[in-house]
């Protein structure tokens, strides 16, 4: 017996050793796999970080290169002179005529202006694409009496036109985006002189100097968008569509004719003026020819003196420079601009606002559901209960029939002190004499007969009573 036990023990020990070796191998394999996974993850993370850093560097280095045409910058290609000039303008009572402001976020803030008819929106140099909502806000602003100047040459000026077309398909005018040449220039052919006539412009007569301008096309007025060309090139003007530096006869745009440079659209009660050269307004060109006089006259034309005494007494005319369309030159300005744009973006878009409102309400609901008060700290006397697997189902079924029969016969045998052989040798009559109950005798002997439900329960109760 002891030997057997020892042998078994030894076998168990051997099994344990094998099992522990297997476990060791498994652990090593798992560790190696984990290390491999970790190194892959590390590489991916490093790559992502590298991409972000490189992206940021490229983004901000580009930003630095392209910063220009800001109303608040005083470099040669900014337009601070224009802004300061407007601020210096006084009325007859020596009161300030204009107030300037800027948009850092999005032109959608124009919707919040109280008196659009006394406001002028100025976007000079479009370095970012307009959003649909922004264009809609500008057109609505103009529709309610506001005035708009959009000056661009080779930038994203056409994004205004494209988005306006989404608003109304008949909005056709667009920036050509190719160099306009004219025989009338000053020293360098890129500096084109334009003679502005009073009967065309209606507010100014004189010469203005352009720098690398482009032209406008599809300017013909439509029923919905009436307008007129205010300023055009000379009849010797042509657009270098193919970029070869000389007019190509078979290309329509390259044929010499008067090309529109400044066009006025009448939008509702307001006006939208498209200028195909923003450099009229830049500091370097400000005092060349009559550029400053032209700019001043244009502003006066678009936001004329009002007869509304109430407005006069309390307000000045508001000139809004859109800085949101310029790329900022440093991280802080850029981040600030992105933040403002995001903020105004979701607060001015009605659908987005509704969506955010719904999300906020959902958030409120979810928070109330998820966050519960801290649980009550109360001592509870608690007793656990454990159950026998066999007793989980209290009902007996036909499947238990043979088991009950076996229990009954075994009990019968032991009660009468019989061995298994003796019990097997009992005849029917002898067994009947012992049991004395025909039902129980049938139950004991008829192994093929199945008992169900209540019948089986009755048999069981009889067996219990019998003993």
């Amino acid at each position, binding site marked *: 017996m002891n030997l057997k036990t020892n042998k078994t023990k030894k076998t168990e020990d051997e099994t344990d050793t094998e099992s522990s070796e297997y476990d060791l191998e498994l652990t090593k394999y798992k560790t190696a796999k984990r290390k491999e996974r970790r190194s892959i993850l590390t590489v991916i993370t490093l790559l992502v970080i590298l991409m972000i850093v490189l992206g940021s560097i490229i983004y901000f280095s580009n930003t630095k290169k392209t910063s220009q045409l800001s109303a608040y910058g005083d470099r040669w290609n900014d337009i601070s002179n224009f802004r300061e000039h407007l601020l210096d303008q006084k009325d007859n009572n020596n009161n300030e005529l204009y107030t300037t402001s800027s948009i850092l976020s999005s032109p959608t803030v124009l919707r919040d202006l109280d008196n659009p008819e006394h406001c002028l929106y100025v976007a000079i140099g479009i370095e970012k694409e307009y959003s649909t909502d922004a264009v809609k806000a500008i057109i609505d602003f103009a529709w309610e009496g506001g005035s708009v100047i959009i000056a661009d040459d080779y930038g994203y000026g056409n994004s205004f036109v494209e988005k306006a077309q989404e608003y109304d398909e008949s909005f056709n005018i667009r920036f050509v985006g190719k160099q306009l040449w004219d025989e009338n220039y000053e020293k360098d052919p890129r500096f084109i002189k334009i003679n502005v006539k009073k009967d065309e412009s209606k507010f100014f007569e004189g010469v203005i100097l352009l720098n690398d301008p482009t032209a406008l096309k599809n300017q013909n007025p439509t029923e919905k968008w009436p307008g007129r060309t205010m300023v055009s090139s000379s009849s010797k003007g042509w657009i270098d569509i193919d970029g070869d530096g000389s007019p190509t006869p078979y290309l329509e745009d390259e044929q010499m004719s008067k090309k529109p440079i400044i066009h006025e659209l009448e939008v509702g009660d307001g006006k939208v003026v498209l200028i195909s050269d923003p450099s009229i307004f830049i500091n370097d060109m400000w005092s060349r020819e009559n550029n400053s006089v032209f700019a001043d006259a244009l502003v006066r034309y678009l936001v004329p003196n009002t007869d509304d005494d109430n407005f006069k007494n309390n307000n000045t005319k508001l000139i809004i420079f859109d800085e949101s369309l310029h790329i900022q030159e440093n991280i802080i300005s850029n981040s600030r601009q992105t933040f403002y744009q995001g903020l105004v973006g979701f607060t001015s878009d009605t659908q987005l606002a509704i969506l955010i409102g719904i999300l*906020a309400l959902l958030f409120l609901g979810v928070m109330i559901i998820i966050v519960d*008060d801290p649980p009550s700290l109360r001592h509870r006397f608690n007793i656990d*209960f*454990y159950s026998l697997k066999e007793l989980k189902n209290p009902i007996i079924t036909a499947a238990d029939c043979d088991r009950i029969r076996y229990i009954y016969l075994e009990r019968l045998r*032991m009660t009468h002190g019989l061995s298994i052989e003796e019990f097997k040798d009992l005849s029917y009559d002898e067994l009947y004499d012992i049991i004395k109950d025909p039902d129980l005798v049938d139950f004991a002997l008829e192994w093929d007969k199945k008992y169900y439900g209540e019948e089986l*329960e009755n048999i069981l109760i009889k067996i*219990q009573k019998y*003993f």
Partner: protein
Amino acid sequence: MWTRKTAVLSSICISAGLGAMIFVDYQLLIICVIFTLILCLSFTSTETKFELTRYLPEPKTFEGDQVTVHLRITNLGRLSGLIEIYDKLPTTMKLVKGSNHVFLNLRRYESLDIKYTIECPLRGYYLLGPVIIRKRDFFNIFCEKKVILNRSYLTVYPRSEDIRRLPIESRYRKIHPGMLTLRQLGFGTEFHSIRDYIKSDPFKKINWKATAKLNKLMVNQYELEDVFDVMIFLDARSITKVGSTLRNPLEFGVKAAATLANTFLKRTNRVGLVTYSDKVRVIKPGSGETHLATIISTLTGTYAMGNTSFKTAVDTATPYLTPRSPIILISPITEDDTIKFTLRDLTAKNFHVSIISPSAIDFEREVDGYYSPRYLMIKLERDNRLSELRGYGGKIIDWTPDKPLAEVVREVR
């Protein structure tokens, strides 16, 4: 810790902020700012610092006894505000007097003593604590929870009963005389039988009543008292936890083992203990108070787990079994097919085996409260198994939950 109020206020704050921006509404903005300020103020005002000491006058006690716990709390921080203190207790302990959960307000360096009494109905090794302190701010918005790991140990020993008449007898004499009766005639105190008077008999042994009845001199014979070794086997397999935590085969078995060990040891016998659960633990036969303490400690830390068989337990304990000594097995004898053959082997080796069998199904029925057909079937099966074991030479006592321990022990004889 956030409360529902925190969630509601924060959500309102965010909603008002968004609403203020969407509708350009300054009233909403003011609401947002005010609520944010309240939240910030509440958040910054929940810092706490407390010192706690717990004192247990009786860290060792017996089942059913009551223990008083003293808890002293000192505020080492600023003015506390309303604080909630909860001394965590095991769920099997009853709170009898006082409370382990109090609300109080303490000034700086102020102390307070909390006293409460608990009843320990279940044996075991327990840890009292940790102490949970919850502090709420003035607006009742945030709730700071602090867990102080100040723990105390409490040992609850199983309670043993007093049994005057010992049921177990040995048929064989050891070298050193003792207090236990052997099934041999000798100079003991326990009555055995009467016989005819012979000349050498002292007069004090004459049974005058029997003499008068039979009309001839009759004398009393007494059982020989001697020391013998008893080995108690306690079944602590996971099956023994059937029933409730307080009333199950294991708890009854532990009580029986403690009682028997106590009684045998008091009468200068040597007692060993074998518990088998997930593994077999053997305490060699020994005597004296220290040995009793060892047995009681082992029983205190015995929990239902594993499925080791009785055969494995006997094989492990074989080197410590005194030949032909009494063995007591306390087991529900369910789900262990080795009992039958092991019992046969032990009987063959002249061990005197008694089996006290707490009925697991009856413990469960006690919880369920009704006799199901399946219960009847399993009960019959169990009766068969007990009868079969009796056939192998063991003394079997079926212990139903309604039967007191003293009565069960009496039946062993």
